[in-house]
């Protein structure tokens, strides 16, 4: 009778003699299919004396593995020969990846940074009453924004918010200090549109009210934010300004991220980018929402999302954002 070793040699030899893909497949059926020789041999294991069973099984299993890998190797070898050469330079199938709008990309980035800094995101209505937009924010009765022709009124005493600061009032009204929020969103002005002005744009305002909040901390906070946005060598500068809802108030200049303050086309040779307004929450505003301004102080700031996005993506015309030309949007 043929020994296991002989069987093995015969089978391996036979497989090795396959001349092509079809013959290799025939060998697979001959030895490894359910009714194949190796499989039938394995089925006979029950008839082998117990003392030899282990070895019998091991040898046959090893043979099975060897035969299989040999067949697979041969198949691969023969199939290579028959496979057609494909043109690797033809374009691949297109998959849609989708994209976010640049203004929302900017907004998302601000949200991410401020969330890391411990601010919550608050939102509020876009159609507001004069109280939340003007009165509560200490806006004097003569302020130009109050003119019915400068803002978009929808009813008497109801208008599209001119600032997202209205959200600050709503937030403070609802709870007790401390508050630390940002309120990104749409704001509206009745304004003629051109390359730098639109009747609708986006702001991101921030508010922090607590005991011991100071003007110095406001500067430090904005510096922290702009360092995250533009790099750690960023410098922040304050210039005095007037806003009815903050005092002291400041306009915020940030060293140009492109030229690092040396002066370039982006910063109009000044080395600085004017990026927002800020200040200490006016005591009147705190008093309007029932917060004791002797105990609590707070700061607030506002950033223009369009302005930040225009700088970041080198967009020259603010109107391109709401034009939504897909050739423009596909680039983001």
């Amino acid at each position, binding site marked *: 009778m043929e020994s296991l070793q002989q069987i093995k040699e015969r089978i391996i030899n036979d497989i090795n003699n396959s001349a092509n893909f079809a013959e290799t497949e025939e060998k697979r059926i001959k030895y490894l299919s359910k009714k194949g020789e190796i499989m039938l041999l394995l089925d006979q294991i029950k008839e082998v004396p117990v003392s030899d069973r282990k070895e019998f099984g091991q040898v046959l299993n090893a043979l099975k593995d060897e035969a299989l890998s040999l067949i697979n190797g041969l198949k691969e070898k023969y199939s290579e020969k028959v496979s057609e050469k494909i043109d690797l330079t033809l374009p691949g199938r297109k998959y*849609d990846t989708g994209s976010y709008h640049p203004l929302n990309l900017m907004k998302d980035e601000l949200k991410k940074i401020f969330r890391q800094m*411990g601010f919550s995101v608050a939102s509020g209505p876009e159609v507001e009453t004069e109280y939340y937009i003007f009165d509560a924010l200490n806006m004097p009765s*003569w302020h130009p924004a109050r003119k*019915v022709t400068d803002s978009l009124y929808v009813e008497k005493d109801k208008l599209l918010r001119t600032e997202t600061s209205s959200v600050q009032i709503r937030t403070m009204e609802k709870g007790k200090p401390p508050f630390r929020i940002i309120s990104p969103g749409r704001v509206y002005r009745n304004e003629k549109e051109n390359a730098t002005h639109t009747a609708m744009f986006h702001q991101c305002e921030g508010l922090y009210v607590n005991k011991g909040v100071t*003007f110095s901390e406001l500067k430090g906070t904005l510096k922290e934010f702009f360092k995250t946005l533009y790099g750690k060598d960023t410098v922040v500068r304050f210039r005095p300004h007037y806003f009815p809802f903050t005092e002291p108030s400041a306009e915020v200049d940030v060293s140009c991220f492109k030229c690092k303050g040396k002066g370039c086309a982006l910063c109009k040779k000044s080395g600085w980018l004017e990026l927002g307004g800020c200040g200490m929450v006016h005591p009147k505003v705190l008093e309007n929402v029932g917060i004791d301004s002797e105990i609590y102080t707070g700061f607030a700031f506002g950033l223009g999302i369009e302005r930040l996005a225009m700088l970041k993506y080198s967009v020259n015309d603010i109107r391109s*954002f709401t034009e939504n*030309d897909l050739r423009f949007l596909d680039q983001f």
Partner: protein
Amino acid sequence: MKISSNWLKKYIDHDINESNIDGIVKKLAILGFETETVEHIKREYDKFVVGKILECSKHPNADKLTLCKVDTGSEILPIVCGAPNVKAGQTVPVALEGSKVKDFIIKRSKLRGEESCGMICAEDELGLSDDHSGIMTLDDNIKAGTPLNDLFGYEDIVFELEVTANRADALGYLGFGREYAFMTGSELIIPEIKLQESGEHTSDSVKIEIKDPEACPRYCARLIKNVQIKESPAWLKERLTSIGLRPINNVVDLTNFVMLETGHPLHAFDFNNIEGKKIVVRKAVTGEKFITLDGKEYELNDKILMICDAVKPVALAGVMGGLHSGVTEKTTDVLLEVAYFNLADIRETVKYTNIHTDSSKRFERGVDPNDAEFIADRAASLINELAGGEILTGRADVYPSNIEQKVIDLRLSRTEKVLGFNIPADDIVRTFNKIALKTSVKDADTLSVTVPTFRPDITREIDLIEEAVRLYGYDRIPEMAFSNVSLESDENLEEELIDQIRGRFKDLGLVETVSKSMVDRKFCSVFERKPVRIEHPLNEEMNHLRNSILLSLLQTADRNIRRKNEKINIFETGKIFYYGDDGINEINSAGVLITGINRAQSWNELELKYDFYDIKGIAESFFCGFGKYSLKYDGSDIPAYFDKDRAVSVCFGDKKIAVFGKISANTASLFEIKQEVYCLEADIPEILELAGKTPSLISELSKFPRVIKDISVLMDISVDAEAVSSFIKKTAGKELTDITVVDIYRGEQVGKDKKSYTFRMSFQSFEKTYTDKDIEKLLDKIIKGLKNDLNLEIR
């Protein structure tokens, strides 16, 4: 406000020139005065001299030209002149060979055969005015050959300041000069007044009656009689033109000059047109009419403050004079008004009439009530100087209750609490006193500050804290590290959901858009929700607010189709606005729009256009992301802007949470879109409700093999796939894990009104490996059911 350095230098002892202006601009910014523009004005006359016309004769070949012989000091030149007013004996400006007149270089040339060696200039050609009616004539006392630069050469640096709305005091050279002097460490020079009064007392010549002392706390007047109205002298014209004002006559120009100098507007009346020699300050009677000096008629109401004479109104107080009361060349007696009006009353007039003037701008922000003496005297003395006449003795001044200076305490501890750093008391006292905030030490923690009435912006301690840090220098504010103390953060579920939705749409390959909320009314009409109107829109394109997110998406689609963008696959989230039962509602909405070419033709596939099953696929993928809810699709009650045969609602329980499908042809044509458009629309609060439900846990996986079987069913074309597949699901029970349609056949073989669907079913058991018998039994049950219950034929 425009500041001419030449003018400013009259009040401060500090040089402003081309080399230091950049530094000044930077320093001003740190002090709170932003410079918008800096203009270097230079009028230089190179190769221009004064000439004397010795003789004139007609040009032999041209009627309108004159041959002149002109003495230019060094030589006598022949010059051909076309001006109608040229005459022998005139002293005139002459542009010599090589000079430049309006970008045109003067050359020696022949004009119609006659030699011409220069040009006699008109005012416009010298850049002095727009006058081109004839050549300019000069004073005959000026010698021929005098360089024109000596007469008209001029250099100035004019910068435009952005004065913040709270600083009315800086809208005058003296007020701004006070800040400038502080900044440069120089002294403010207040002009000296040389006043020569004569005759009767002003208050005997004109009576003043204030009927509304709240609206007009003070009215002060001076009278100058027998003046001569004429053109202003060059220096005055130069002052006004340098900052863009048009000179009118000496008296009017002086009132403007003094307004700009002091920041306090004043008005000059022709006293002979003031009937009854009386000024009455009162509110208008509703319906009363008034014509302003620019000839416009206004119908007034009882909130408008008027300056009247004994009979009629003569001015809109603080805003604009009347047509017939102003100073003209016929005026001989001038009544000068220096008044103080309540800010709110001026704003009322401005708001009602929409007239914005240099005067109203200052009164609205608040002028100094207590500088009327100085201003009246300053203006009167200047009028006297330039227009002659006699200034009557004293002033007619009605000021029933004196407006006092405020005294405000400034706590050093509070200052440090707000600022976060300490400014030494000495510093504050020193800097405050420099800008006329009289400050003294009250106690160890308190400074007492007397606020002059020209600083109405300072009313409480915080205003002083701002002044303290402004004068200390915003560039010196230390940065204190942000204290990242942990605060409880509020959940903003809707905001988070919006971001999640955006993420899902983007992952489905869609492009996000951001559109304006303002839209044209005509587009609102097709959507169901009642739109909200905007009251004073700048144009028709923004007279309403969008009442559907699809409105924006359709507009965007139209714009992109026009621009030949073939594949349009967009989404947007944002507020929509409408009238509900309780007034204006605004909710967040999400929308998708696809139209055009889904897949462009390529070497391995044909062009594929978007169709209904694309939007359905998007809807299915989108909603499956919010958990395994049993959402139902329902074809009834579809909004009219969708094609009712090609759209379905997505329902969760009984609630409709979204609609998707083909936009109706009518709706598309309103947006001028001709191709098929597919949209999905959902109100975000509805999805929030869905997302708020706890999603079911993921299902356990079976260890036993899956068996796949196909079955072809012949059915009437009116039967939907859903009817069959739900029957199969019901019949097979939970062992059927998936069912889908893999083939559809329609054709002669199955008959005209029939179709054949092939359903592919996956079976999997949690208990066992199926035997052939098990499967046969399952299929049998299904086939029997389809045959008997649904009356369908199995192929």
